[in-house]
Structures are given as C-alpha cells and as structure tokens.
C-alpha cells in the first residue's frame, strides 16, 4: 500500500510541475502585461521600469525558477495591477469560493440524489420523464443565462439579497451565497440525478437485489439499504471531482452576483494579463484537482486490493 501511495504522490507532483510549466509558457502567449494601462499605451521607458520591478526582465526559465522558489516560501508575489500581495487577495477570495462550493454541493447532492432515486425506482413514469426533461433542460441552458435570469427576477425577494449590493448593505454570508449557489447547483444536480438514476437502474437489476426481495424484505428497505448504498458510489466520485472543480472558481456566476470569489479574480486577471494572480489561482486549482484525484485513487486502492497490486 505504501509503495502505491508513494508512486501516486510522485506522479501527482510531476503533473503539478508540468501543468505550471505549461501555464507559465502560456502566459507569455497571453500577452504583455505592461504594454498598456487601461486604454492608454505605456511609454517604453515606463515599461522597462515595470519589467525590472516585477522581475520580468529575466529569461523565462529564470523567472520560472524564481517563482517556484518563492512558492515554497509562501510568497505568491505581488499583483501587477494594484501591487497588492497575491496572498492577501487569495486570502479573501478562497474562503468565499469555498463557502460557495460548500453550499452548492449540499444543494445539488440533495436534489440530485432525490431526483435520481425517484426516476430510477419509478421508471418510465411521469416522474422519470419529468426528471429526464428537467435535467436535460438544466444541461442545455448555459449557466450564465440561468444566473442572469435568476438575478433579474429573484434578487431582492424574500431572503435573496438585492443585487447589486451597496457596500453598506452587507448580507450575512449564508444569504449572499444562495443565488450563486443555486445557479451552480442546477447543472450538477442534473448530472447527479442522471448518474444516480443510471447507476440505480443497473443495481436494481442485480441478483442480490432479487435475493433481497425474495427474502421478503420491504421495498423501502431493499431500496434504501441495499440498492442505494451500492449505487451511490459513482455519485461520491463525481461529487469529489465536482468539489475540486467548484473550488477552482465559477467565473461567470461570481461576476453576475457580485460575489468576490476566486473565479471573478481569475477572470479579471486574465483580462489584465495580471500574471502573478493567474499563476497563483491556476496553481491552486491544479493542486486541488490533483490532490483530490490522488486521494480518490488512494481511497479506491485501499478499498480494492486488486488495484494496489496492479
């Protein structure tokens, strides 16, 4: 088991390094961050000064190594636009996105599971069709449309805070997070429902279910105790991945609802060619994904001896 973990860890590190190298190179494709400020050109003399200040006058490999070195000491650099420590900016944005991800996951897991089970157990019924149609609608409408429509119609009603929010009307985090969380949850709930439905359909056909029914167990026990526990495994995997994805930031949704999370920060930084922030957030997203993926792999290896030995 130990060897497997070490191997997997080594691979994960390689992936992160490769991804950051790719990103670093890619940032040079994205353009020169100092060529313009706003919509005015920056004179070449000033560009030189800016480049020297931010260490961009060194060669690319040198810059990458400097960046890695700083990373290990926790120095994420200073952003090109406002010259604030990137760590500060992330320090505000990451918890916000984490809260959003949490609420979104809770919502979509509950809705998705319930919908999926109902659709599977009462197959071909009205409910099944309804779930199928709704989930496909959810997948078929772009998230930003859902978001904008929600914002236009629902913000300000009931517990949903008014968007735009003035800075003296600070809503408590659990209401501020609602509308963007719902917007994000819609798609994931749809996928979870479909996943659950398919998985449960397969499981319900299995022999051990027939045995359970033959033994005379009540239908509810059959479903909740046996069928559910076996069919929920893929949902767990999906949710694990989904958490990683959501923690990477939901760009458009955050912007629409004025939610100061990682996604909005990333989007703005891309527009501004604000390399330190892009690097920091992308590295963070890559780390999260790779980390989660590795944990899932290790978990499965732990549960299934065949994998360890392969």
């Amino acid at each position, binding site marked *: 088991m130990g060897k497997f973990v070490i191997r997997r860890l080594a691979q994960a590190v390689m992936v992160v390094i*490769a991804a950051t190298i790719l*990103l670093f190179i890619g940032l040079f494709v*994205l353009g020169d961050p100092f060529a313009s400020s706003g919509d005015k050109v920056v004179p070449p003399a000033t560009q030189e000064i800016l480049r020297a200040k931010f260490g961009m006058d060194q060669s690319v490999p040198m810059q990458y190594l400097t960046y890695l070195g700083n990373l290990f000491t926790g120095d994420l650099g200073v952003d090109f636009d406002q010259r604030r420590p990137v760590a500060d900016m992330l320090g505000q944005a990451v918890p916000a996105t984490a809260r959003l991800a949490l609420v979104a996951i809770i919502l979509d897991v509950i809705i998705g599971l319930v919908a999926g089970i109902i659709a599977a157990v009462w197959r071909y019924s009205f409910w099944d069709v309804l779930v199928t149609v709704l989930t496909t609608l959810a*997948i*078929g409408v772009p998230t930003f*449309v859902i978001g904008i429509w929600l914002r236009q119609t629902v913000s300000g009603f009931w517990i949903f805070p008014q968007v735009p929010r003035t800075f003296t009307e600070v809503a408590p985090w659990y209401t501020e997070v609602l509308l963007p969380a719902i917007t994000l949850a819609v798609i994931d709930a749809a996928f979870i429902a479909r996943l659950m439905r398919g998985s449960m359909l397969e499981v319900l056909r299995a022999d051990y279910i027939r045995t359970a029914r033959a033994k005379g167990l009540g239908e509810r026990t059959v479903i909740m105790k046996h069928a559910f526990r076996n069919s929920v495994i893929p949902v767990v995997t999906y949710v694990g991945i989904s958490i990683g994805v959501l923690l990477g930031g939901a*760009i*458009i949704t955050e912007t629409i609802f004025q939610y100061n999370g990682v996604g909005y920060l990333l989007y703005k930084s891309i527009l501004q060619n604000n390399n330190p922030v892009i690097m920091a957030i992308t590295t963070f997203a890559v780390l999260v994904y790779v980390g989660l*993926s590795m944990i899932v792999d290790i978990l499965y290896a732990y549960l299934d001896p065949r994998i360890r030995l392969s």
Partner: protein
Amino acid sequence: MTTSEPADMATAAQSVIVQSAHEVDGVAPEPEGKGKQPSRGQFADMWRRFKRNKLAMVGLVVVGVLIILAIIQPVISPYDPWEQNLLNTLATPDSDHLMGTDALGRDLYSELLYGLKLALIVGICTMLGTMLVGVTLGAVAGYRGRFSDTIIMRVTDIFLAFPYLIGAILIVRTFGSGVTQVIIALVVLNWATGARLMRGQMLALREAEYVEAARSIGASDWRIVVRHILPNAIQPVFIYAFTSIGVAVVAMASLAYLGVGVPPDTPEWGRLINQGIEQVQVAGKDYLWIFPSAAICLTTLAFAFVADGLRDSLDPKLR
C-alpha cells in the same frame, strides 16, 4: 467560462466513466456484451429496444428534423441571416419577422437557422475529434498498460486539472478566432475524458476470453484491438460523445459570452444569447435571449434523449 460549465463536459464524461468503469486503475464492472461480438442480429435487437423508448424516438425524430433544417437552411431561410437593417433594429416579433430582429436589424429566425448549422457542425466535429483522439490514446493506454498507461494518464490529468477558461482562451488566442479554432479548442479540452473512458473499457476487456482465444491463435495486437475489443469498448465512449454534442453547443455559447470564438458578427447561438443578455434590462426584449436559449435546449434535449435511448438499447439486460 466557469469551470462548472465546461467541466460539465469533463464531469459529464467522468460521470459516465464512473458509471461504466468505477474508474481508478483497473477496476471495471462487467462491460456490455462481454464475451460476444456484435453481429447483424444484435443490431436488429438494438433497434428494437431503441424503438421501445418513446423519448428516444422523439429525440431521434427531432434530431433528424434539425439536420434536415440545417441542410436546407439556405433555401428555407426567409431572410439572409447576415443582412442588416439599421432602420428596424430590435423589433418585436411580428408578421414580417417571426421572432423579431436583433440589434442590427437581422431577422432572428433566419439567424437561428444559420446558427443551427454552426451548432451541429461544431457539435458533431467536436464529437468526432474527441473520439478520434480520445479513443486512440485511451486504447493505447489501456491495452499496452504500464509505462504508456502512466504517461497518458498523467497527461490527461494535466489537461483535466487546468481550469477550462484559461485553456480555452490560450488556445483561441494562439490560433485566432473561427469555427475551426473553436472545434480544436473544444476537442483539446475534452479528449482527456474520452481517453479515460476508453482506457477503462480497454483494461476490462483485454482479459476477456475471446481476446485470449484470438491471441492464442496468433492474431496480432493490432488485429485484436481493432476487430475484437474496439467494437465492444467503444459503446460507452460513443454514448458519451453523443451526449457531448449538446454540451459542446452550450460550451460554444459560454465561450462566446467571454468574447472567445467565432468572428463577432456571426449569427451563432452563443453570440445571439450574449446580445440578448445585453438587452435584459430593457423591458420587453426578453425574446432576444429566450429564442436562442430555447434552440440550444431543444437541440441538447433531442441529442440527450437519443443518447439515453442508445445506452438503454445497447444493454441487453434491460427488458
């Protein structure tokens, strides 16, 4: 574009992977049709099972109609979708313009028809491209195992870990904007999940009895993969890819929302939605984004129904 939309493609695929392969190194449930190769009789069986699924049939009909409409679009389009009329911008639907006009006075209905063509082309090409790259690499990874497997798996990791938006923007800004570039971008961002899927299938099937039998009579690797494993393995990949047509269309719309993609004045559904959303604060102009959104929904629904039906029909255990 949030990692949660296109991740819809990544996660969508992953959900199917998980479904059919309980993914991680090497574990897979019984794949369909294990131990047998599809024959003509099986296709007839599949068709029979497919027909029984009413939703799938509806989907098939709608897909068919959409394809026909896209093909005959130049003939049936009431106006030239590119023709501007600055005297009649943002007109509400009336007898002249079934769905009103957009901000440049173009007939919205004609634009939707033109956009249908684009959507189908991009969707289908993305699907084919994803399958081509994904199936090849996934097959190599699954069949060869060991080193190639590790390399390819870690490469897919890199592609999957990268936030979608950055990847899309990087690709399109390197290669410029245009339909081809959008297709390339979507394929690059999605082949990884197809590859993983294929690999999972490969791992399960390469130990199958008929494969051993073929090996024992001296069949070459190539022949084994292509003639014996591929037809069975490809089914989940194909179904995933089919579902992803609709998702590709949505992804293109989301890319357009961020100004990335086809040339700016192209009547493409994504751009039409963007233009419509710009008008959302103006009273009475909601039709501008509702019509293109409905078009996307309809298309996605139709393909999804067909994909669902395909999956059900390929599974002999479902009665």
